[in-house]
Structures are given as structure tokens and as C-alpha cells.
């Protein structure tokens, strides 16, 4: 057989051949993924290992790349939300709202206060689900399964609230340009009240299970630490950056959707290790709960749930059949005849695990000329090989889990 037909040799094979340990033992290669139960998604890591210690890692991405940015170029603006759902599917409402806010920024639409507060509530609920899953899965990856299932029923409660708001659970596709597609039902508020009543006790119990647990501390303290400078150099945002001690939060730095009306603190860690990330997420859940309470208290009366922008907001169906105006607007919106300015804008929101940014270039047509999603997971994953260098295999799993890298968002 000719040399050309042989598969190319991986560079680790050469390293293994060259470097033989003094005691005669060999280095080995371990394929962590693409399908491994602890990666919680499909990414591959080729690890060069000396026993259990990782010497080098080579990540491969793109296993579930769906070309969202390209698909978005061929879709009208209001049909892009389903794509954002499927990025960070643990907190899809934040992505949805981020996209609508980008469009509102583009079209200069002022959203009524009540709709903004509703958005804040649903975004904070999404943040709670995201952090809840991340932290409880960290527990699972260290071997404590019960906490995960125990708090998971509260994710279910949150999904029931989503259901009341928009009908969907995981991929919510929630909202419209200028607000929501319909007003929240009384049942949604009722479920929200029960959630706010029951969840704190359960979450306190979950925290107690882990925060001072000796084994958990041993597994997470000083594991996967990243300094503030390094984290910023990589472009970390969100809880992972705050755990390293930088108090950057988009909600405070560039307030959107009336976040400036609420009083909350930005929890920061010190060492940027796995334990700090865990604690920052825990603290953020309490802050989110307080924001939701404040929003419910300050909520303006009335039932305004969307801005009066007939050019962009689909009229109710019964009006479409009964009034000429509505029929025209409906036709124009669906056929893409609405005016869109030529612009280039960027709008960041504080997502579940970092700054989700929407960079949008329009050319006046009904579809974006170019749309780029700033996906925090993609950025975290670049730092991952460096973070696990020299760590043990068990640490690699825990670090991946605490970075909250979500395959859907990483590959988009």
C-alpha cells in the first residue's frame, strides 16, 4: 500500500514515540468525546495523558454546527428567534429577548415600561434555570446526583411559567418586535408567585448540601483557576469572568430593558476557580430572585404588553379579517414590505453564561445582510485546553462543567 493511502498520523503519535518516560512507561492518548456522558453535548477533546495527568489537549468543535449565521441571512427578521432559541437552550428567553431588543434598537422602538418589566422577569427566570442546571450538573459530575434531581423540579416549574407565557417550554420563541405576542395570563403570575415562595427553601437546601461539603471543596477549590488578566485576555464574560474578580455585568455596564430601575449587587469571586464559579452562580440566583420580586412590585398597572408599532407588530387575527388597516399591515409585515434602516449595530445582553451579543448589519432589505452572534461558550472553550493542562482527568470534567459550555451555543 502506498504511503498516500495511509491516514495522516496525529501529532501526538509522534510525541509519544519520541518521549518515553524514564521508568519505561508510555504516554497515551485518550479521546474524551465526541460522545462522552460528561461533556453534556458533542465536543471532542483529544488528550495526551501521562497516566491520569493531562499534558496537552486538542479540542475539536463543530459537531453540531448548523450555520445559524448563514441561515439568518436568508430569513426575515421576525423568523430569526427560533435560531436564537437553539443556541443556549438552557436560557432561551434571554436569547429571544436579546434579539428583539437588537431589532428595537435598530428600528428605534420604545417599549412600554410594563413590557420591559415583563421581559426582565422572564430573563431572570431564564438566568435561574441556566445557573440551576449548571450548578446541579457540576454536582452530578462530582458524583452527587441527588441535588440535581432535587432542584430540577423547579426548572420544571419555570418551564410551566414559560408555557403559560408563550406555549413552549425549552425552545420558547418568545416575544415580538416591541413586546410580547400576548399578555401574560393570570395563571402565569400565579405560578410565578408559587415559584417565588417555594424555590428559595429548596435552593438553600441545595447550597447547604454543597457549599461546605469537604469532598466538594477538595474537588473544586483551586481546580481550573484562571486569573482576571487571563480571563479578560481570552474575552471571558458573565459568571466565569466575575468568578475571577472582575465585576463586569452587562446589566449594570450597559443597562437595557430598564435594568437601571432595579437594585441588585453583582457577585464577584476571587480566584476564578471552579468553586468560585459555583458560588458566583449561587449568589446570582438570589439576586435574580430579588430582581423578579422588585419587578413584580414596581410593575405599572394596566395591560400594555407591546409597543404601538403597527409597521412591525403583527395585528391580532380577528382584526386582520375585519379591518382594512390591519389587513394591510399584516400583508406588509408578512411580505417583508416594512421599512428597515441601513445600519450596523451591536447589542449585548447578559446571558445565562456570559455576554450574548448580536452584531447586525442591514442593507434595507427584509433579511439581515450579516448577523453575528457573540457566543460566550465559544470563547470559554478556547481557554479550556489551557485550563486543563496539567490537571487530572477528573478535573477536566469538572472544569468543563463549571464553565457551563453548551454545545448548541458553542457550535451555533
Amino acid at each position: 500500500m502506498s504511503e498516500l493511502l495511509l491516514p495522516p498520523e496525529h501529532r501526538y503519535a509522534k510525541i509519544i514515540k519520541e518521549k518515553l518516560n524514564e521508568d519505561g512507561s508510555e504516554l497515551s492518548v485518550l479521546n474524551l468525546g465526541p460522545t462522552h456522558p460528561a461533556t453534556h453535548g458533542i465536543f471532542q477533546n483529544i488528550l495526551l495523558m501521562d497516566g491520569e495527568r493531562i499534558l496537552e489537549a486538542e479540542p475539536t468543535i463543530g459537531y453540531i454546527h448548523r450555520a445559524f449565521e448563514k441561515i439568518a441571512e436568508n430569513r426575515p427578521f421576525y423568523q430569526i428567534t427560533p435560531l436564537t432559541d437553539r443556541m443556549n437552550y438552557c436560557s432561551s428567553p434571554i436569547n429571544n429577548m436579546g434579539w428583539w431588543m437588537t431589532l428595537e434598537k435598530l428600528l428605534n422602538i420604545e417599549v412600554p415600561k410594563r413590557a420591559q418589566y415583563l421581559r426582565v422577569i422572564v430573563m431572570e427566570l431564564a438566568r435561574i434555570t441556566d445557573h440551576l442546571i449548571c450548578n446541579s450538573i457540576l454536582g452530578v459530575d462530582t458524583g452527587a446526583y441527588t441535588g440535581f434531581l432535587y432542584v430540577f423540579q423547579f426548572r420544571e416549574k419555570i418551564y410551566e411559567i414559560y408555557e403559560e407565557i408563550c406555549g413552549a417550554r425549552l425552545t420558547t420563541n418568545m416575544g415580538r418586535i416591541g413586546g410580547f405576542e400576548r399578555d401574560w395570563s393570570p395563571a402565569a403570575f400565579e405560578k410565578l408567585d408559587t415559584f417565588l415562595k417555594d424555590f428559595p427553601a429548596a435552593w438553600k437546601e441545595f447550597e447547604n448540601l454543597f457549599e461546605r461539603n469537604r469532598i466538594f471543596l477538595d474537588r473544586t477549590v483551586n481546580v481550573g483557576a484562571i486569573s482576571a488578566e487571563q480571563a479578560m485576555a481570552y474575552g471571558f464574560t458573565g459568571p466565569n469572568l466575575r468568578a475571577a474578580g472582575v465585576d463586569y455585568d452587562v446589566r449594570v455596564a450597559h443597562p437595557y430593558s430598564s435594568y437601571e430601575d432595579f437594585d441588585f449587587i453583582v457577585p464577584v469571586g476571587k480566584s476564578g476557580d471552579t468553586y468560585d464559579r459555583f458560588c458566583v452562580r449561587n449568589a446570582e440566583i438570589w439576586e435574580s430572585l430579588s430582581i423578579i420580586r422588585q419587578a413584580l412590585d414596581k410593575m405599572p398597572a394596566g395591560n400594555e404588553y407591546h409597543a404601538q408599532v403597527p409597521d412591525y407588530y403583527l395585528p391580532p387575527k380577528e382584526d386582520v379579517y375585519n379591518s382594512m388597516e390591519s389587513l394591510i399591515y399584516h400583508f406588509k409585515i408578512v411580505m417583508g414590505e416594512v421599512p428597515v434602516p441601513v445600519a450596523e449595530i451591536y447589542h449585548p445582553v447578559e446571558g445565562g453564561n456570559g455576554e450574548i451579543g448580536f452584531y447586525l448589519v442591514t442593507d434595507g432589505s427584509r433579511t439581515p445582510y450579516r448577523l453575528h452572534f457573540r457566543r460566550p461558550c465559544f470563547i470559554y472553550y478556547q481557554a479550556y485546553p489551557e485550563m486543563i493542562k496539567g490537571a487530572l482527568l477528573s478535573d477536566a470534567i469538572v472544569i468543563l462543567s463549571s464553565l457551563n459550555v453548551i454545545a448548541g451555543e458553542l457550535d451555533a
Partner: protein
Amino acid sequence: MVDNVFIIEKSVVIVIVFAITMIMAMYSTWAERKVAAFLQDRVGPNRAGWGGLLQPLADGMKLFSKEEFFPNTPNKFLFIVGPAIAMSTALMTSAVIPWGDRLHVFGRDVLLQATDINIALLYIFGVLSVGVYGIMIGGWASNNKFSLMGAVRAASQMVSYEIAMGLSMIALLMMTGTMSLKEITIQQSGMNWNVFYQPLSFLIFLICSFAETNRTPFDLAECESELIGGYHTEYSSMKMGFYLFAEYASMFISATIISVLFFGGYNYPGMQYIVEHVGVNIGNLLGIAALFVKICFFIFFYMWVRWTIPRFRYDQLMHLGWRILIPLSIVNIMITGIVILRSEIAVFLGF
């Protein structure tokens, strides 16, 4: 001269002990799922039979009817031998356990123990040590890096924890002066349970028994979040079932050994009174029940721990074994020695 009735009697006892071990192991799987469900606010298995009581049978049927998968390994023979060793060693230990005192039936004294040998403790340690071969051979023969890692972890873990376990036993043996489990049980009658005299030894033994049975927080050999399935990643069908079954069988045996060594075996408060005033058989049957209550408690304890705390990392596990448990058990031996020889020491020091 051994008479025929004796052989029949022993055979019956052996069959019963074997059956009980199997049934307990089977229902431990059911109990594990029920306990996990209880701790996690779930329902647990409840479709097969009342309260899911037929679930172990259904699981067994399922495993039997699954495809026998063989990985591409040059060691097909060892691949089969692995689970066989794990299973047989897990079942062998039950032979020396004293399940109860004598029963009077058919005009004979029936000893409720397969065999009462004077080196029972050594026998148990020996058999438990062989158990690691099942895991090592299986993991190595799988020709899979994750399996091999699980096997290596299991081997080093078991070897290190056996030392601490053995040392913790020495302190107990210094006190009891015998290795026969029957004798040890008799010495503990009337609430003189060893746990009150050797609490440190009990703690060390308990921790090591978690390591020996590969249960959380020491389940590094399989830890599904890192090594997928550890040493049994490549196993399917009933070979896989054997490994799982062996784990539950050894959990049952460990719970039994803890109950016998430290919690008085079949002794219970007021046993003497019932044997003298109510009847020998009733008293001793209650003794068996008492032993099983203790065993069930410890099995529950194993599950409780498994579903509560995270697992160690490999180096931390070794640290705990070599740097904490072994020195601690040596200190325990010294303390026990001083307490046993306290009068001699007092004389020596001139008091």
C-alpha cells in the same frame, strides 16, 4: 465419622445461605432505586409488581435477553472470566457468617452457619482481595482505555484500603483474641457490642468497606461521569449483570460483616431473657431477625451516602487512604494495646 444427617443439615443451611445472599443482592438493587427515589423526591420503580417488587426479576430478564457484545479484544477468555471471578468471590464470603445461634429442630441442634472456622476473618479478607482480580481482569481484557483506567484505579484503591482495613481489624482482634466470627458474636452478647469499645476501628472499617465495595464516594472504578462505565464500559448482557450483582452482593456482605463484628451480630437486648423464659427457637429466630435489621440498616446507610455526597478525586483518595487512615489505625492499635496492658504498665511504672 460424619453422619448423613449432618451432611443433609449442612447442605440445607448452605442452600439457604446462598439463596438469602442472592435474594438480598437482588432486592438491594430494588432498594437502591427506591431509596434513591425517596431521597430525590421521586416515585421509583412501581410498574412491575406491587411497589415494583418484581423489578429485579424484570431487570434480570432484560439483561439475559440482551445481545452479547464482544469488543475487539484478543482476550475473549479473560473477558468472560472477569465477571465470573467478581460474582463468585462476592458470594463466597457468606459461608462463614454466623446468621444466628443454634436452633432445635427434629431433635437436633442446627448451627445457623455454613461453617465455623477459626480463621473466618482471614478468610473474608482473602476472598475480598481476590475480588479485585475480577475487576482488573475484566477492565484489562476489554481493550478500552476507559476500562483500563477504571481497572487500575480499582486495583490501587482496593490494595491501599485493604491495609487500613486490616490494621483496623488488628485492634479489634487484640481485644477479642479470636478470629472466629462465631466467637466474636458470642463475646458481644448482652449489649457488649464492639462498637462501644472500638469506635475508631469501626469508623476506619466503615470507610474502608465503602472503598472495598466500590461505592460512592469511592466509586472511582466506574464513575460514570469521567470513565463512562469504568471497568464495565464494554460489558453487556448478563456479564454486565454479574458485575452489578457482585457489587450489591458485596455490599450485603460488608453490611453483614460490620453488623457481626461491631454491632453484636444476632445479639439483641433481652436475648438472654427470651431464650430462657420464652423458648430457645423463638429467641434465636428473633436473633436472625435482629441481624437482618442491622444489615438492612447498613445497606440503607450505603445508599444514603451514595445519593448524598460527591466522590473523591483519585489523588485525594490515595491521600485519605495512606496518609490518614493507615496512621490513624496504627494509633488505634497503640491505644488498644495500652488499654489492654494498663495494669502491667501501671506496675512497670511503679504505681
